């Protein structure tokens, strides 16, 4: 478990779920970044098998929408779910996605399949962290942002993703903080005074 202010809140906000084999270092880095950028207490769960139920033989890929549906119905664990897989993801309309999430929902899934940098392992880790935080932004209800220095900007290519900073613009940051506060109140409601 990533050490967070979970002691203060008693609960993790987010379950980081490896689907199939995912480098533990990747999980640690993602967890640490989620904690640092989003201030999100995070649990790294035990690895689960590859999501065979979402496999599309005709495309040799995994359907991200099916994975999301599966994660959404889970009742145990943290209220938010972020799955990471080494498999290639797609959605019915797109040939591939780096990640997929429910806008204002509770689940996201990220594939590290296409994110590796051919020279720098460190850059690969940063890319994965960026995509994970970007998808979490969608879970917090954020749409894509037009600010060139905001992690919520849509990146058409990995080179564009590399250009983005590992943080949000002030407007998106404000919205994240607002949504995070609402989430916190929902999970840990303040004691009712008699």
């Amino acid at each position, binding site marked *: 478990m990533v050490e967070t202010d979970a002691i203060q809140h008693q609960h993790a906000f987010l379950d980081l779920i490896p689907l199939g084999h995912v480098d533990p270092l990747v999980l640690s880095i993602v967890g640490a970044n989620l904690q640092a950028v989003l201030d999100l207490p995070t649990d790294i769960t035990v690895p689960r098998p590859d999501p065979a139920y979402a496999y599309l033989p005709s495309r040799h890929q995994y359907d991200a929408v099916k994975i999301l549906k599966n994660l959404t119905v889970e009742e145990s664990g943290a209220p938010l779910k972020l799955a990471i897989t080494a498999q290639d993801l*797609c959605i*019915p*309309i*797109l040939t591939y996605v780096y990640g*997929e999430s429910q*806008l204002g929902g509770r689940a996201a899934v990220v594939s590290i399949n296409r994110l590796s940098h051919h020279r720098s392992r460190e850059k690969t880790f940063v890319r994965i962290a960026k995509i994970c935080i970007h998808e979490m932004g*969608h879970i917090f209800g954020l*749409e894509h942002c037009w600010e060139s220095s905001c992690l919520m900007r849509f990146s*058409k*290519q990995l080179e564009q993703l590399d250009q983005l900073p590992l943080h949000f613009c002030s407007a998106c940051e404000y919205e994240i903080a607002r949504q995070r506060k609402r989430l916190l109140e929902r999970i840990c409601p303040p004691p009712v005074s008699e």
Partner: protein
Amino acid sequence: MVRAMKVLVVDDETAICQALSAWLSKEGYHVETASSGPEALAYQADHHFDLYLLDIKMPGMDGLEVLAKVMEEQPDATVIMITAHGSIQTAVEAMKRGAVEYLCKPFDPDELSLLMERVAANKALREENEALREQLLERQETLLDGFVAQSSAMHHILSTIEEVAPTPSPILITGETGVGKDLVARAIHMRSEQANGPFVAINCGAQSETLLESELFGHEKGAFTGAVRARRGRLEMANSGTLFLDEIGEISPKMQINLLRVLEEKKFQRVGGNQYIDTHFRLISATHRDLMELIKEDQFREDFFYRINVFSIDIPPLRERVEDIPVLADYFAGCFAAETGKPVEGLTQKALQILCEYHWPGNVRELRNVIERVVVISRGRMIGADELCFLQERADDCHFGAMTLKEMEIRHIEATLEACGGNITRAAKQLGIDRVTLSRKMKRYALSKA
């Protein structure tokens, strides 16, 4: 203010609708989905969409049929066809019928993103182009009515324009015909926060009530005989800009109520339509009529008057600001000389004097026409008094017309007596009255034979 594009995704596969809807929502678009052609057309009847993403292969009504009906209802619609690899030929056919692009599913995320950016940019360009073209046309029509003023009255008006332009308040411009009310309206628009938006003008006095209603509110296809296609009205076109209602004193009380509602609710329905369209514009109205007088006569609603008249600007007639006449005349002479290639450099002092003495019932518009006429027929470098002799005739005619009946009678009797050499009998005969009556009139008006 940039409005998010409204998108309708039409596909019989729920997964495709959901995936596209989710993806586009994250991009900030407002997305609706329909699982069949008829459902899409029913949606279209109640909502206005900027973009349609249409699947070609659907059971029942296919994408091409839906495309035809969408284009029929909304000729400016942007449609992108979605196709499987096998039906590219059909997609090409769709483009011939008005679709702007086609996508083979599944497509790359960056391909979709680029396409959406292109569609949004094209839409913005088209709207901007439409607004600019209209502004350009209107500006060309009044190109020569530049703000040229020397008088303190006009300088006061210019400073008022500077003060009121940045506010969102409605403005009423009053003044005789031809003083340049539309020019003042345009000047306010150019200095307002809506300056980058369209300036949409309409002369309310130039059309029937029905036509005016259709012009202002637009109409849906089939709203009335001859409405073969849906049309945007001026209220819609003026969104984010300025709406200039010229000759507002001519509109009917019923239309006043309709407009009052639009001004208060900032939304309206097209004629024959049942969906509300939001519109935000700055209103400038103008009239040459005395609206207070019309209110007394129950022809103009008082509540509407106060709604459109938060600020008022009264432009004095040209005869009350004679200082402006020489500078305006020189300005127009220069403009028309350049336009016609005539070597005219200006007007002589005597010519300017004639212009200043004339009373200009048609105001600046009449002055402009006079200068255009003399520049066209002039042969020298300076326009002289001789070339303006026709103005004297106009002045005489108008002078005669401005007289009271009594003054006219006196003048006519004097002229007849003079023409008859003081012979009362002959003059009476010429005037068609008897000698005694003429003698009595001469006595009453203290007229002599000579």
